């Protein structure tokens, strides 16, 4: 049996155990519901033309605009209908538009003549969407890498804490053990995201936001490789952190640096996403590039070669972190007396075959 076969057996076990874990299954279900609700419901709430109260003399242009018109005898009755919340708005002599607390855009539009609009920067995205999309990308990467990263660390600690690790290490190379966990985590994380993405896409179509989908497609396409490699980078850190601990209770203490490596890029991307210079820098830094680069592609700020360069940087960083993570993992896996310091783990690993 070679390292690849051993890695596969180990990954299979990790996945099998996870798929039976209720917390994991309910968590996934919860995300799916959010994705479905988030894509289907907003168009439903904002959807539907406004209902307008108006006298017959003012009704024609409103009907022409596809609004639901309730004909009332006079302006006073129209105003009363709005106050009674029977209709969204009223049009009275003037013409003036009455509404309670929110100007009804579709009614205003029906009564206005609009100038021809020529967009000089046609890529510009709806500001609401421009705010939401970075948030969603960053959030998905943050939550997923956090969830599955913690699980990798927990699985490492479980093997240390139960001491089964000694039997495992006697049977398979330590690297296969580490690789199996990272691979299993990546597969599960990716499968979960793919499932959520499928639900979101279906939701967008049901909710009739297909236009947004075509805008998002290239960003999502790039997000996939960035996500996978970014995840491997973090997974290596999580596994090493887990190996330093000795009991599940230690996990918070040993994983603080990893938490920062996940959290800081998340907030940076959220808060700086309209600062072009900051985003350019973030889109090349290994920890933030998985979210920042797809975003710059989404907003059309990045040239075609940029994601490729950034991806290469990320691959190199992930490779380096895997090697370093493996070294720390090997150096601390069999130290079962309390927490191991990073320094000890780094310097005194066993040269086992």
């Amino acid at each position, binding site marked *: *049996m070679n390292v690849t076969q*051993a890695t596969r*057996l*180990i990954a299979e*076990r990790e996945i099998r*155990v996870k798929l039976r874990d209720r917390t994991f299954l309910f968590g996934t279900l919860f995300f799916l519901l959010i994705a479905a609700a988030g894509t289907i419901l907003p168009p439903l709430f904002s959807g539907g033309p406004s209902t307008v109260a108006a006298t017959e003399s003012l009704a024609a242009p409103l009907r022409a605009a596809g609004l639901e018109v309730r004909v009332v005898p006079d302006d006073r009755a129209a105003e009363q209908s709005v106050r009674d919340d029977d209709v969204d708005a009223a049009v009275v002599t003037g013409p003036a538009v009455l509404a309670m607390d929110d100007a009804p855009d579709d009614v205003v539009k029906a009564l206005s003549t609009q100038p021809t609009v020529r967009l000089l920067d046609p890529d510009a995205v709806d500001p609401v969407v421009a705010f939401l999309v970075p948030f969603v990308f960053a959030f998905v990467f943050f939550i997923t890498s956090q969830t599955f990263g913690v699980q990798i660390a927990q699985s490492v600690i*479980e*093997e240390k*804490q*139960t*001491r*089964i690790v*000694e*039997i*495992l*290490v*006697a*049977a*398979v*190379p330590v690297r296969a053990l580490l690789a199996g966990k990272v691979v299993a985590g990546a597969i599960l994380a990716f499968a979960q995201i793919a499932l959520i993405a499928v639900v979101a896409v279906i939701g967008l179509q049901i909710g009739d936001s297909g236009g947004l989908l075509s805008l998002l497609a290239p960003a999502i396409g790039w997000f996939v490789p960035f996500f996978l490699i970014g995840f491997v980078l973090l997974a290596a850190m999580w596994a090493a952190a887990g190996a330093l601990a000795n009991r599940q209770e230690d996990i918070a203490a040993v994983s603080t640096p990893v938490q920062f490596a996940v959290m800081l890029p998340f907030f940076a991307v959220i808060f700086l996403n309209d600062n072009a210079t900051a985003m350019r820098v973030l889109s090349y830094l290994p920890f933030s590039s998985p979210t920042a680069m797809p975003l710059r592609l989404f907003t059309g700020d990045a040239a075609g070669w940029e994601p490729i360069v950034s991806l290469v940087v990320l691959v190199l960083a992930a490779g380096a972190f895997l090697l370093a993570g493996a070294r720390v993992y090997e150096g601390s896996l*069999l130290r*079962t007396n309390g927490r191991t310091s990073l320094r000890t783990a780094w310097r005194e690993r*066993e*040269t*086992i*075959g």
Partner: protein
Amino acid sequence: MTRTLRLDGVDRSFGDRQVLRNVSFEVSAGRMTGFVGANGAGKTTTMRIILGVLAPDAGEVTWGGTTLTRQDRRSFGYMPEERGLYPKMTTREQVTYLGRLHGLDAAAARRSTDALLDRVGLGERGDDLLETLSLGNQQRAQIAAALVHDPEVLVLDEPFSGLDPLAVETVVAVLRERASAGAPVLFSSHQLDVVERLCDDLVIIGDGVIRAAGSRQQLRDSYTVPRFELVVEHDAGWVRDHPGVTVVELDGARVVFDLPAGTDEQPVLRAALARGPVRAFRPVSPSLTEIFREVTQ
């Protein structure tokens, strides 16, 4: 499959502390070798080095004359001192999994697991989660985990600790089976009486140095000062005054005494007969505990 496992000049330090010094001994095929020593004497470190979990600083472990490879070690069965399996998996599932990690294909691993669980008396509980089993049953599962791939060499660190007497018998029977099938079996234990009853060969370690090694009988012979037990009809106090005798224990009519090496014991017997009836007169072999005390001091 009659290969001998050999350790040759193995050294190992942790930081400044040297825990093994020039450790050399053999575990012969088909024999049960007991490995005894005080806590911290280096038993676990030695076993971990045999299994490749730790690397020696110097020296090597050979099997059938060639240096051990990872491939060889995969055919070894190992039971670490500190026990543990996955709490959230069933016994059957994890024993099968460990079989596969040791190189069995899926079908062979399943077959072997089923047979072993029956053998150690876990057949009925095989599909329960490990964490729901009693401690004794978890120990049986651990034995099954060490044996699932039909190992060619067995290395067991304290296999009997925590076992109820019934489970001890089961484990002893299983280990004997393996030994008589030709596998070298090395096991450590604090329970010297168990080791004494079970082992064919014995290795005694103290402070990281092998103090004695050989067959049980050989060790007995070489660490024995001539010691005898005499039981007479009345008081045996007179033995104290017999030339050359050192009394070890005197209890009314029963006395245990040593003689200088090479001294004939028959004159003592004749003297006893001259005083009256003799109920018993026999040589006393030292117990393992006594040998152990002597060589580790």
